[in-house]
């Protein structure tokens, strides 16, 4: 089952390049992936400890390298997110003018790489699967993008490549920090070594910093964020959906999976720095987002800003906060994918995405307006959507935090300031919604058609998933929380 989920998109990409009908194959493969991952998610045994469905092939005895797949609740939730967004992105792909099969193959490779990284238990393949998305991203933005696409494609490629190499060094340092008898790139071995206290605290803090810079670049943590808005504004909508919705979560997943559980002393040592940076993500990028004058750039910046909340959950280092962070990764992936999808449809119809040149679209595109509205409400965390449930958990988790600080400390300040971010995101999201869809139409008025009624299905899929986990976050919590139970304290 797990092999099927991991390799269905990649095999489909190869088949499409070999000449199978692109759209049909891509839809079939992503539907299969989604179906299997839903079955895996709801069939997951949340009581059994450790990783489940483990599948191992030894590769090299000398390097102690093996290809190992396995899941716990955290990785399953991420795989589910990848499968949902992949199906929606493939569905939303409209007419492609040239190289149609290459476009679909690139989309499937991005998603397949992300899902493979979430399912990998070996750090070598964890890293390698993520990098599988690098060349498809470069090609997708460079060939089919809009606006200043070439510059954006260069920027995102160089940033992500450099971030990845730094990450690679961090992973090697982590592997080298373990005594040589237990040295392995296998996550389970590293976890055992870490819980036996075999990684020296001084080593932990230097490894944590390298990992934070590496992962932080991939996640667009301030000050390594400048690639993100430009890339998302230029990328074709399905690529932006997958990249912002799924692939970017790889870095956060890595911090939750490696940095926090394996390097607790490093996390404590750098928590002040991380808090300052994530507040910059929330407040500073939030204000930058308000100043944006184009819909696509506004969405690009908003996705950078929302990373700040997930970082807050990770920084809090207790089960409540980290579980909230995991659910927020899921919720944000859904809402940003929906917003990018609708924006991509609007881009095909109107001459400019400048707020000054837009207006009154709701009259002509009622379905698009409704769907965008749902995405906006989800993104600003209205109750009922999973973003709300997750943000509550993150802020409460940060307020209590796992470091046993007494009195009124930096974490509580951070939680207070982060709350202001909710107001900021409401300001820019609702203002963008009003300026694009309501008010008076620009002169001369453009006549546009609504999005195809067939797109109701992917919209409904994204919204339904968000609402399901919004009303019943317990489904996710009881699967995720055991993943952290061995490392973190529960907050009372």
């Amino acid at each position, binding site marked *: 089952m797990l092999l099927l989920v991991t390799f269905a998109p990649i095999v489909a990409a190869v088949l499409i390049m070999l000449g199978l009908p692109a759209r049909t194959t891509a839809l079939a493969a992503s539907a299969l992936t989604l179906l299997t991952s839903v079955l895996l998610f709801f069939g997951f045994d949340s009581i059994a400890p450790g990783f489940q469905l483990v599948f191992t092939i030894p590769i090299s005895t000398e390097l102690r390298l093996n290809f190992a797949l396995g899941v716990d609740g955290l990785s399953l939730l991420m795989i589910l997110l990848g499968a949902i967004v992949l199906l929606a992105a493939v569905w939303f792909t409209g007419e492609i003018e040239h190289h149609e099969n290459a476009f679909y193959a690139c989309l499937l490779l991005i998603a397949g790489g992300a899902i493979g990284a979430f399912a990998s238990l070996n750090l070598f393949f964890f890293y*390698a699967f993520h*990098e*599988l998305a690098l060349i498809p991203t470069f090609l997708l933005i460079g060939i089919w993008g809009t606006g200043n696409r070439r510059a954006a494609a260069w920027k995102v490629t160089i940033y992500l490549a450099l971030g990845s190499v730094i990450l690679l060094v961090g992973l090697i340092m982590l592997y*080298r920090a373990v005594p040589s008898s237990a040295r392995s790139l296998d996550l389970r071995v590293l976890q055992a070594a870490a819980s036996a206290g075999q990684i020296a605290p001084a080593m932990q803090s230097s490894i944590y910093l390298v990992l934070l810079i590496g992962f932080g670049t991939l996640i667009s943590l301030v000050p390594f964020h400048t690639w993100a808005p430009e890339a998302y504004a230029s990328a074709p909508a399905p690529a932006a959906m997958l990249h912002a919705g799924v692939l970017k979560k790889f870095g956060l997943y890595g911090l939750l999976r490696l940095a926090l559980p394996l390097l607790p002393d490093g996390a404590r040592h750098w928590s002040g720095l991380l808090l300052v940076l994530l507040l910059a993500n929330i407040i500073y990028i939030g204000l930058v987002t308000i100043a944006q004058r184009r819909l696509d750039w506004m969405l690009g910046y908003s996705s950078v800003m929302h990373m700040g909340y997930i970082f807050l959950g990770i920084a809090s280092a207790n089960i409540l906060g980290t579980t909230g962070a995991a659910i927020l990764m899921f919720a944000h992936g859904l809402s940003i994918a929906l917003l990018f999808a609708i924006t991509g449809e609007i881009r095909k119809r109107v001459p400019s995405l400048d707020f000054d040149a837009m207006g009154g679209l709701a009259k002509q595109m009622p379905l698009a307006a409704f769907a965008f509205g749902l995405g906006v409400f989800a993104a600003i965390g209205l109750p009922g959507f999973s973003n709300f449930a997750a943000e509550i958990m993150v802020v409460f988790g940060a307020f209590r935090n796992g470091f046993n600080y007494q009195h009124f400390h930096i974490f509580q300040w951070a939680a207070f300031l982060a709350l202001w971010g909710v107001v900021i995101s409401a300001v820019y999201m609702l203002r963008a919604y009003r300026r694009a869809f309501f008010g008076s139409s620009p002169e001369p008025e453009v006549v546009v058609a609504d999005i195809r009624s067939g797109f109701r299905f992917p919209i409904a899929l994204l919204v339904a998933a968000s609402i399901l986990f919004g009303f019943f976050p317990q489904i996710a919590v009881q699967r995720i929380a055991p993943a952290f139970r061995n490392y973190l304290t529960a907050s009372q």
Partner: protein
Amino acid sequence: MIPAPYLEVAVIILGTIILLVESFASQLDRRVLGYAALFGLAVIFIATFFVAPQSSTASAPLWTFYSADALSLFFKRIALATTAGVLVMMLDFAPSVSIGVQGATPQAGLGEFFTIPLFTCAGLMWMASAIDFVLIFVSLELVTISFYVLVGFTRRNPASLEAAVKYLVLSALATGFLVYGITWIFGATGETNLQKITTVFSRPGLEHNAALFGGVLVIVALGFKIAAVPFHIWVADVYQGAPTPVTAYLSVGSKAAGFIVLLRVLEPFLILPQMRTLLVAIAVLTLIYGNLAALPQTNVKRLLAYSSIAHAGYLLVAVVSFSGRAVAFYLVAYLLMTLLSFAVLVLVSQGEGDQLENFAGLSQRSPFLAFAMLVAMASLAGVPFTAGFLGKFLVFDAAVSAQHFGLVVVAVITVGAGFYYYFKVVRAIYWDAPPSSADKIIISPLTRFAIIAMIAGTFLLGVYPQPIFDALQ
């Protein structure tokens, strides 16, 4: 079971027979000679798997300067595979040779063009086995002299002639350094055998300075071979001017042989801390210069020349971290991806040129070659699931375990720069429109097979490196 020294002898005999056939069968299509050489190399390559292990009791004088350990066998196979790959490219390149060489018949000179690489190959194989400075020097000269001829082979092409003169002058200078260095080492230790030099060094109370001076001179000469900064001046012009298959041979064969000799020569010297500092400095310079100078290149051959300097830098990082495994694996990965990119370059540049714009829109002219070049560039840049990535992984691993964090920082930055210039080629292939005059590219079945084999090898070694490690045991 075949005694190891017979392998080189077989290569030499093969070359001599082909030369004789070339002289007497004047009506023969010269390409047959190329295929015959290829077939002979394939047979010898298979024979390397049936070599008798070197017995420790063998006291014949041969074994005092010739070693048949796993490492040398491994590098012999590299030399044979490289030469075979270069011969495949030369067969594709044959029309350009006919233009570049003046002669009575249309195929004048082609026979020698296919034969000289065999003698180079024998030299490379001897270098792999050499454990005595005399054999090192003699085999190095065999390689270098045959390269003089090959680099200037298309003698009606001024660029090729210029490259040959530059290579001749600077290479002769490097040879001078090598002989002078060997003399100093011999004077200080009284030995030319590397194992005996190690024994002399470990003797307490010995004055190292004279031997160290000789060692530094030898490093200068080898730095020329592996294209390390600051001994790299010749690289860009010679690579650009030489016939493309010869460039591929220079950048793979010459470098591989240089590294194996470096590994062997350094063995006695690495107990001296000064040597380590020197090598770290050379590695840093090579990494920075190779990668930064590659950034603005618009000629693909020149770009690959600077990239070969850059890869020498990563290999030097592995050398100073004492990881023979990383060096060997990186060399194999480098061989695969470099030969692959040159094989595509030979086909694309045929009759047009080797500028970046000649690659524009290759994805529409030939999707197969475009994909092959994408794989080569991805592997050179170090994208996972390719051999190039695993090579970089092993190099970084070796550097971190040897605590060379300064080198790691430099290498991280230069890898980032590498992504830029390798992806420049990918950009030309996939983003840009092809020129209207360009037509489809015809690929011969043999070349197609060779390219598919190299692509498969690049991916296979990227996820399954064990065969290489087994071969080194």
